[in-house]
Every structure is written in C-alpha cells, then in structure tokens.
C-alpha cells in the first residue's frame, strides 16, 4: 500500500485559492511558522518580536495570497513568505523612527522646496567628502549630526558598541573640520 503523499506548497495554495478552506492555509502555517520565527529571531534578536513578526507575516500572506503565482512551477511559497517577513521586520524596526521623523520631515520638505533653487555651491563637495568616509563612519555621522539621534539610538540601530560610535564620530568630525571651517 502506497503512503499518502504530502501536498506541495503550490498545491495547497491552488486549492486554498479555489475553495478558501482555512485548513489549507493552516497547513502552510504549520509547515513554515517555526522556520519563519527562526528567521525573524535572527533579524530582530528578540523571540517575542520574532513571533509577532511571524504572525504578522502570515496575516499579510493570507490577505495578499492573490499576488502569489502558484501556476509557475518555480514559484516558492517559502521565498515569498521571506520577502513579506523582510518587509515586516524592516517596518517593525523602522516604524518608530518613521513616525518620529515624519513631522520633522514635513517641515523640512517645505523648506527644501525653496532651498533647492539656491543650493549652496559647496553641496556637491560636501557629498564628495561624505563618500570618502567609510560606511560605518558616514552612517554614524549622519545619524548623530544630521538626524540628531542619541548614542543609544545609534547603537540600537547599527549594532555598534558605544566605543565604536564614539570613535566613528570623532573620525568624521576631524575629517570635516579639516575640509570646512
């Protein structure tokens, strides 16, 4: 007697789209939830947030299942889940920053519309000098001086230690002080 074969992801998605039977989507959930939690935990470094992210990913996948093309054999449901999870993790980590900076950005944009006509001629040179910095130094410099973030916020966002942030900022400051008075 032949053992029953496990339905593939594409089969489950196809049947779910046709019948909308929750049990079919639940099978996909059971299949990938743990793996998704592992992925989210690696990104967010927090098991509780990782679980929230995994739940949110499946919720979005449920709503957006119409966008997944199960007719192509090369389509990967897990790959599609990961794309949604990446967006969810990124949103989770950027969410607060976007909210806090939104008000600031709106007022800055209004100023920017006027300023662009009279941009300082040294702006290209400023950007050129920025490119000369290493990626880490440039990132910390912009976060601290341009975006007014604290050491704690920079450490949380970048994963650098306090010593590293301090060193990078000193390096950036010295670099620009030589170039601009």
């Amino acid at each position, binding site marked *: 007697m032949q053992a029953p074969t496990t339905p593939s992801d594409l089969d489950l998605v196809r049947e779910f789209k046709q019948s909308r039977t929750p049990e079919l989507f639940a099978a996909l959930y059971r299949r990938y939830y743990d*793996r998704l939690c*592992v*992925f989210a935990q*690696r*990104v967010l470094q927090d098991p509780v947030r990782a679980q929230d992210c995994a739940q949110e990913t499946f919720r979005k996948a449920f709503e957006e299942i119409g966008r997944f093309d199960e007719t192509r054999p090369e389509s990967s449901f897990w790959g599609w889940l990961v*794309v949604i999870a*990446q*967006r969810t*993790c*990124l*949103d989770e*980590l*950027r969410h607060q*920053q*976007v909210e806090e*900076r*939104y008000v600031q*950005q*709106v007022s*800055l*944009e209004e*100023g*920017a519309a006027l*300023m662009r006509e009279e*941009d*300082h*001629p*040294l*702006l290209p040179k*400023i*950007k050129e000098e*920025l*490119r000369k910095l290493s*990626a880490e130094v*440039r*990132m*910390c*410099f*912009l*976060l*601290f*001086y*341009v*975006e007014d*973030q*604290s*050491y*704690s916020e920079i*450490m949380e*966002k*970048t994963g650098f230690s*306090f*010593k590293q942030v*301090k060193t990078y*900022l000193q390096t950036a*400051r010295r670099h*620009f*002080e030589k170039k*601009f*008075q």
Partner: protein
Amino acid sequence: MTEEPLSFEDMIDHLRRERGKCPESQALLAYESGELEPDEREKLRAHVEICGTCQASLRLIERMRQAATETEADSAGKQAIGGATDSTRREAVSKPRSGSIFAGLKEFIWRPAIAYALMLLLLYPAYRGLLVQRSKPELSETPLPSIPMGTSQTITLESSDLRGTEAKPNVLTLSSSDRFVMFEFFVPIRATATVQYAASLQGTSGSLFRVEPITSKDGKGNFNLVCPQEVLAPGSHVLAVEEFDRQKNERTATFSFSFEVAR
C-alpha cells in the same frame, strides 16, 4: 562662481534640508535588490547617500538576506540529519547487543562520564561569573562619607562625550549653607543584567569618593548622586561614570563630566 566659506553647522544644515523624506520599506527592499527603474533608483540613491537611517536599514536588509540563507541551510541540514538519525536508529535496532560484561560496564561508565564533563563545561562560565562578582575591579575604594541632613544644591552635569561637541562648562558655586550637592546626569545605559555602573569623583588632590554600583533612578539612564559639600575643594573636578561588563570582566565605557567648583 566663488565659493562661500562654510562652517560645520552650515554644512549640517544643508544636509538636513537636502535629505528629504525616507522611503517606505518596500521601496528600500526593491532598491537593495535592484528592482527599481533607473530614475527611481537614482532618486533613492541620492537620498540614501545622505541618510543615516536608510543606510542602517540597508545594512539590516543585508543581515536579513543572510538570515534567510542561514535559516534555509539550517532547515536543509535538519532534514538531512533527521534522515541520518532514522537510518542509524534502524541500524542500532537490527544490530545484536554485545554479550560482553566489559562492553556493558564501559557503556555504564563512559556515557555518564561524558554527561558529567559536559555539565562541568556548561557550569564553568557561571562559576567564573560568581568569582568575578565577588572580586572588585581595580578602582579606588574610598568609601562615600555619611551624609548628614541639611540643605542641598542640585547641578545637572553635561558630558562632551555624549554631545559630540564641547559641552557648556559645568560650574558649581557653593554657599556655606549647602550641606551637600546633588549631581544629576545622564548616561546611555544598557539594560543588561551583566552590566553595572560605578561613579567616582576626582578632584585636584586625587580621588575623593567612589560609589558602586549606581542605579538609574528611572531605568533610562538618568542618575542622581549626592555628595557632601566638604569634599569639594575649589577647582576642577571630574565625575567619571564607568560601565563594567561582568560577563566580559572588563570596563566597556566611560563617561566623563567635568565641572568647576567655586565658593
């Protein structure tokens, strides 16, 4: 066109104005994977070039790609191990047991020995941690004198370490009626159980006192520290706050608050 001289502050101002609004996460993901149209890509590139937040997000996206690869590899590995374990189990069941007493004793002694060794290895770091906790780091151990009740003065100290620019000078003017001084200051603390903070006050004559550990009053990095007025001679002083990681057994950060005492 003649170039006008530009100060550091003006440069920061220009960068702030130029930066604009951050894109949505979806757009950043598409930018990172090269899926944007050329003009959209260029627009985003110009923003990312001067936006620390988006640069940090792109680093994060790179980490996510790595996490996805590692998760895939783990999952594939577990499936392979699962298969191997099954076949090993089947082999073990089918293999006849050895009748030798020596083989039995060897199994009876060897497996527990491995288990005990593993247990010791796992417990050793905890044991080391206990030892470290008992021993004090090499710092001045002058105790804080007892503080009598009386009037006090409060001063909020700022550190140039945290501002990145020269902090405004902290000046403390003492009057004879003040019995003690309350220092208020902020350090970016790490909410980790293995990290603790200590404060030491240095004057022109050397170390005045040390308090260890100190605890943030609100859990967010704001501290209050009380000091009797009589230890504060006129002149320069430094309040140093040290972060000590007990797990690594090393000082991981120092924040300095300089102030002048005048009478």
